């Protein structure tokens, strides 16, 4: 599963976000997540992909940016 697909799935299944509002351009804040919930989501992503997202890298706004960061960290780990 790609990082974007995982984000979209966990947002709708665990965080109860309306799937129709989920798009690559959407930000987590727009989707209704508060700061504590966003950190919880990052832990879900870390657990799924076996990575650690460094605090200084967690500056993404949109889901596409978040997915790109995860992609990069996964590849860095693999390499």
């Amino acid at each position: 599963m790609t990082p974007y697909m995982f984000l979209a799935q966990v947002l709708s299944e665990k965080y109860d976000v309306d799937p129709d509002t989920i798009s690559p351009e959407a930000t987590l804040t727009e989707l209704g997540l508060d700061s504590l919930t966003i950190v919880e989501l990052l832990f879900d992503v870390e657990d799924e992909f076996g990575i650690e997202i460094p605090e200084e890298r967690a500056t993404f706004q949109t889901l596409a940016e978040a997915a790109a960061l995860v992609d990069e960290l996964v590849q860095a780990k693999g390499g």
Partner: protein
Amino acid sequence: MGGRRVFVTGLGLVSPHGEDPAEVFERICLGESAIRLVRSGVPELGTDVLLASIDFEPGDRISKADLIFMARAAQMAVVATRNALEDSGLLADGRGPEEAGVYMGCGLGGAEILQRSYSTYFERRSRRVRPTTVPLIMASGPASQVCMRFGIRGPAHTYSIACASSSVAIGEAFRSIRDGYSDVVIAGGAEAMLNDGSVAAWQAVGVIAKEHTDGAGASCRPFDLERTGLVLGEGAATLILESEERAAARGAELLAEIVGFGASSDAHKLTEPSVDGQELAMRKALEDAGVSADAVGYINAHATGTPAGDPVEIEAIKRVFGAAAQRVAVSSTKSMHGHLVGASGALECAITTLALHQSRIPPTAHLTVSDPACDLDCVATVGRDAPDLETALSNSFAFGGSNATLVLRRA
């Protein structure tokens, strides 16, 4: 003691026997056990464990977004409270009475969340513990979540007094209405600590039952000569308590009246019970209720099924009741639903409420050969009709030597 009269006007359960109070009570009166063997989460560490666990599914009764911030005990408390508010007719558009107080008992809080955080730290060697850990671990989580989910704005108190937690919560809730501080209180308890780490800790105390030759379900045997210990359970129970005036004004059904509460401390040993302390709690409760021991027809005993504990309670009952001890029915429903620790008092108070409401005394299941040291009428194996039952006690005696007794009367 004077003051306003306090009635139970609703019950809600998430119990090892299910959620419907009438069905739960029926099964308990028939002596059906909810205790079973459950597989440990770490197979190489052993063996199946005897538990009264629940296949709990909040379903659509709690939104997914809310579940993220709720430990299992809090989820159970919210569902039990929803059931109780519905039962009492006080749930409107998903909200409860805004002015209500919330008095909940809970021993350990989010036990499984604590386990997960330790596992992250020690097994994964990582400091990246989830940020929801602290707000989910709190023992006050169940009470806080009940307030948030149902829009309750009165005081939210949590009593964490081990096995006496929710009896004290109900007792203090009763007093707050009787003494005029509240008109309606959501009172009860929740406990969910059947995670492997907690169960292992309980096993280490040396009080857990061994599987009985009659089967896993027959392993918790209070007052029986072959008893070997307690069985842990989980769940939540909520009672809606209302002043007589408030209940009457809305024509609420009265399930039972709470008439007294007594609490005491052993000042003795951490895990060894004391006849003196238990006697004192029962005497104070009867005095508080203005009821003589002769008037009591039933005692829902604390008796957990440990060899050491049960005779102590029997001796305390004999001291308080004198000659009347031979006439009072005493049963331990833990023989079927196990020991819910912080939720035990609330579940047993709910069962005592139903006993008074239905004029029916639940049994001590699996009591086939009575221990001579427990030689009272312990209502062996099946329940019985009790048309004259007017007054009952519910006992909860905790590790640490905290004792609580509630006195209830038929409404």
